[in-house]
């Protein structure tokens, strides 16, 4: 290694062989043993870091807690826990390592008018692969007191935060829909080959809207899915 190659590695060199890798660490060390300029740069870097670490700890002003207390006294209660956050703690929306694919289901929810049933069809996914599904609810005004219900057929399971299938096949909760689009992300896994349905229902009083998402699960592994409305 020459000086130009070594200089950018000096910071990592200080962190030890685990950062740089044994081979590069040894090469940098060898160069440092022979090059006074780089060796001096390393000393400088050590000095810089020592100066930073030696910076005195700054203490908050004594009245900061009291000021905050006075400001908080003027605050209304914080909004209650968001139902979507609660749901996400139960059923997972992970960045899965196991080749997750996404099926996007869109439900247009209108309080008045005829009741459409929307079907979303995904192409086949391999068995035992986690599939991320987004179900979007769209409304043109805020709707309070809505019941959400998501059910899976036998060949599908919800997935927990570790990416493992849960036993439960239905989740229901009460919440509200804000004007515009609300996306509920879930992750499911096909555990048996077949054409399995995710049924998402949203209810307000006597009105209900349904979306069927069909996930064909095939026995063999690999492949992606695409989504189309039917």
């Amino acid at each position, binding site marked *: 290694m020459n000086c130009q190659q070594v200089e950018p590695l000096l910071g990592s060199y200080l962190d030890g062989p685990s950062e740089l890798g044994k081979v590069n660490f040894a090469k940098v060390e060898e160069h440092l043993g022979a090059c006074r300029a780089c060796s001096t740069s390393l000393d400088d870097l050590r000095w810089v870091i020592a100066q930073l670490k030696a910076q005195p700890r700054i203490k908050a002003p004594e009245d900061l807690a009291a000021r905050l207390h006075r400001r908080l006294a003027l605050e209304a209660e914080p909004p209650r826990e*968001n139902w979507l956050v609660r749901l996400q703690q139960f059923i997972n929306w992970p960045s899965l390592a196991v080749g997750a694919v996404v099926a996007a289901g869109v439900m247009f929810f209108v309080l008045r008018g005829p009741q459409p049933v929307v079907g979303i069809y995904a192409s086949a996914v391999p068995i035992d692969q986690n599939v991320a599904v987004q179900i979007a609810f769209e409304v043109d005004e805020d709707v309070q007191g809505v019941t959400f219900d998501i059910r899976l057929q036998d060949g599908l399971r919800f997935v927990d935060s570790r990416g493992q299938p849960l036993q439960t096949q239905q989740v229901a909760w009460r919440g509200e829909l804000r004007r515009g689009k609300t996306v509920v992300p879930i992750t499911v896994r096909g555990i048996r080959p077949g054409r399995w349905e995710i049924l998402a229902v949203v209810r307000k009083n006597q009105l209900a809207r349904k979306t069927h998402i069909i996930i064909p699960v095939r026995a063999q592994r690999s492949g992606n899915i695409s989504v189309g409305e039917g």
Partner: protein
Amino acid sequence: MVSTPEQRELICRARNGDKAAFETLIGPQLDRFYGLAYQLIRNEDDAADVVQEALIKAYRSLGSFRGDADFFTWMARILRNTVLDELKRAVRRHEEPVETLPESLDRSLEGKAEQKELREIVHGCISQLSSKLREPLVMFDIEGYSYEEISQILGINIGTVKSRLNRARESLRQKLNKQRNRLAGWVKVSDELPAS
């Protein structure tokens, strides 16, 4: 990284409107939050205002806090965003930063003008770094945040944190080399020091 059971209990109470629980939760972290804000803004009054604003934002947003994240890093992320907003506002107002140095906790340093001068030189060089490099440097080397905490606060992976930190340190070393005359007496400056 997850919140402790005690924190979760306090978060739960705070979400239900218990302001005292929220204050109990953030009280032990005030110095850390203030230290970070101060190191990034370099003005005592502005740092205190930003911390207060960030904590009020956090209180209002408690409903969106996910329990599987660390509460402290969640708060620090809000603080960091509030700091960035403040810095952008200051740029729009064309304000020059007016550095005010708080008293050190280390009383042995008090009254040592030389120490103060050295600190000013170092901080002058830090302030010349881009915020992309300054943030991990301040968080890791000065404020003692872990790589994982910085990664979560800045929303970048740990490898990127390390790489930016190393670039920041190297850049700082080069900037300090240019100050070698002012630094004489603090560090042995070799004649053979490579030109930066």
